[in-house]
């Protein structure tokens, strides 16, 4: 097996733990920044871990957190020094290979969804997400609206009616809707 084989010829994006993404001997765009971020986050965790119970007893509640955070800091320090010494991958850019506009747009959609789902409710927020999401991925408006709303109805029936998952109702009178559907079916019987 070629050690550089990553299961994906285009983006080296880590489809599997057996063949993680990245390049063993080269540094991808943004890798140093990500490594720095993890190093700082690990240091903050280590500082927090020391505040748990100190290190007075080996069986103290803070022992495993301190050791774990210390391992994280040491690993990230090693990875950092290894990464900065590696040559840059040629022909890759952040905008094309790491954070293309579609990924950024979807992360924005997801954050927007998480913020809007409570006040607006599951049905309208999901409808907007699906329709605009499918449209953003290159489909026409008719297809996006048709498939988006069709998928929403399927999801709602499966999860709200069958699995009885209670999502935030928001501005939609969901409980009444469910009752109407139940009445319809009980009427049929």
């Amino acid at each position, binding site marked *: 097996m070629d050690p550089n084989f990553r299961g994906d010829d285009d*983006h080296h994006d880590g489809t599997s*733990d*057996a063949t993680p993404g990245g390049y063993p001997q080269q540094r991808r765009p943004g890798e140093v920044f990500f490594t720095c971020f993890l190093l700082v986050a690990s240091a903050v965790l280590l500082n927090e871990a020391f505040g748990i119970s100190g290190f007075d007893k080996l069986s103290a509640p803070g*022992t495993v957190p301190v050791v774990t955070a210390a391992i*994280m800091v040491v690993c990230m320090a090693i990875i950092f020094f290894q990464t900065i010494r590696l040559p840059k991958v040629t022909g890759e850019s952040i905008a094309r290979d790491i954070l293309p506009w579609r990924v950024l747009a979807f992360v924005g959609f997801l954050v927007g969804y*998480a913020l809007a789902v409570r006040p607006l409710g599951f049905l309208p927020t999901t409808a907007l997400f699906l329709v605009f999401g499918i449209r953003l991925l290159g489909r026409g408006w008719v297809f996006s609206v048709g498939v988006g709303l069709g998928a929403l109805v399927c999801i709602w029936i499966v999860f709200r009616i069958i699995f009885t998952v209670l999502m935030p109702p928001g501005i939609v009178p969901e409980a009444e809707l469910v009752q109407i559907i139940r009445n319809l079916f009980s009427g049929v019987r």
Partner: protein
Amino acid sequence: MEALSAFVTVLAQPQLLALVALGTFAGIYIGAIPGLSVTMAVSILISFTFSWSVYPALALMVGIYMGGVYGGARTAILLNIPGAPSAIATALDGYPMAKRGEAGQAIGVSTVMSVIGGFVGIAVLAVAAPLVSDFALRFQPRDYMFLAVLGILLVGSLSTGSLVKGIFAGALGIAIGAVGRDPLTFTPRFTFDLSLLNGGISFIAVMIGMFGVSEALLQLHHVDKKAIRQKVGRIIPSWKVVRKHLPLSMQTSTIGVTIGALPGTGGDIAALMAYDHAKRVTKNPERPFGDGAMEGLVAPEAANNAAVGGAFVPMMTLGIPGDAVTAIMIGALFIHGLNPGPMLMIDRPEMFWFIVGALTFANIFLLIFGLTGIRLFTKLVEMPRAVLIPLILILSIVGAYAVNNAITDVYWMLGFGVLGYFMRHYGYPLGPVILGVILSRLLDDNWRRAIITAREDWGRFFDGVFSSALSSVLLAAIIFIFLSHTPPWKWAKARLFARPKPKE
């Protein structure tokens, strides 16, 4: 007799049999559709089935697991896109076979070999688990601690990636698992004085984020990629072909079940190791490896399905997951009030035999569904990513929300999804993170028990380790993994095992 009755529970209850069949069928498609993985499906599913009884929930998950590990092979063969991580090695020779017009034969052989591998894995599970479980009763807390560490380290060490990144990922998982109030002393840990962190971070939110959201975001890179479809001829392979490759499939099934049974390592690593093995032992393949060698298809397919049975061995006997999917299944058992480990095998042996039965029937369904329905398959599998990706993201959100009806879990899931996305890009394995989260409590509890038993004294602790053969072997294995990745070891290995250069 009780074991037999639990084994056939699936057969006795049509609802359970239907769920196993449905799970296997769905698993084949989930495994086959690029962008949907078994780990993702099971982690999303756990949040919807937690209100079910344990048997139906397990029947569905077992079916999806068995079908999903196999399903990836079909797209690997037909489209050169491994539908699941365990099918990466399958694409290397499966797709060249399809290009030669042998797609039907490749699918048929991969199905039969997957089923053979699956049965080997199940047989090993049925025989080995009760023995391991009896042995595990003698395990000391320190042994569990060492096993947890070993599981987290093995993923990093057996994959082609960096061990340091694997260790970091495992430590990150343990830290995430430690967030919240300490269950023994109620001391807040990693809570940053925020009350919302007192209850800890939902492991389901972490799993769905890492395996669902990050995978969906990665798939956004491939929205415009067009797959070239191949024609499919006769699928059912001839007995001659099966018999010819039976010895290799048995060898690689053994590799698969062993790798699967090692804590933390699953079908994807097993398939790659089996492929390497096939390359070494096959002296004169009809076609070279990488150009459509049948052996390159047989080896990974037998191994990855054998790894399924193997992965259940440490899960059922020790409570330590064999791979990421069994890590999630441990979570499912926790939710249903069960605690996997040697005591579960003693208190609830019917649970173990039920799982063995469900796996067996899932394997039979795999043979049926694997050799039929190819026309429906080629239509469904080409579901446009433009529809699939937004759907996966919505299912992930609903799944994360459903467990606690808390929007905070959705925020955690999104955060871990973005973190997982970058980790994948930069070569950090995600399996150890999930393993760390699941094993965090087990590791912490057993460390504290072990060191309290040793009266907080390192000397006594190591006396205990060296006076027990098992503890010594486990510690030696951990040290070996570290040493084998150091420059002096690599230098010594190169000197000792170097082949002499032929004289010019």
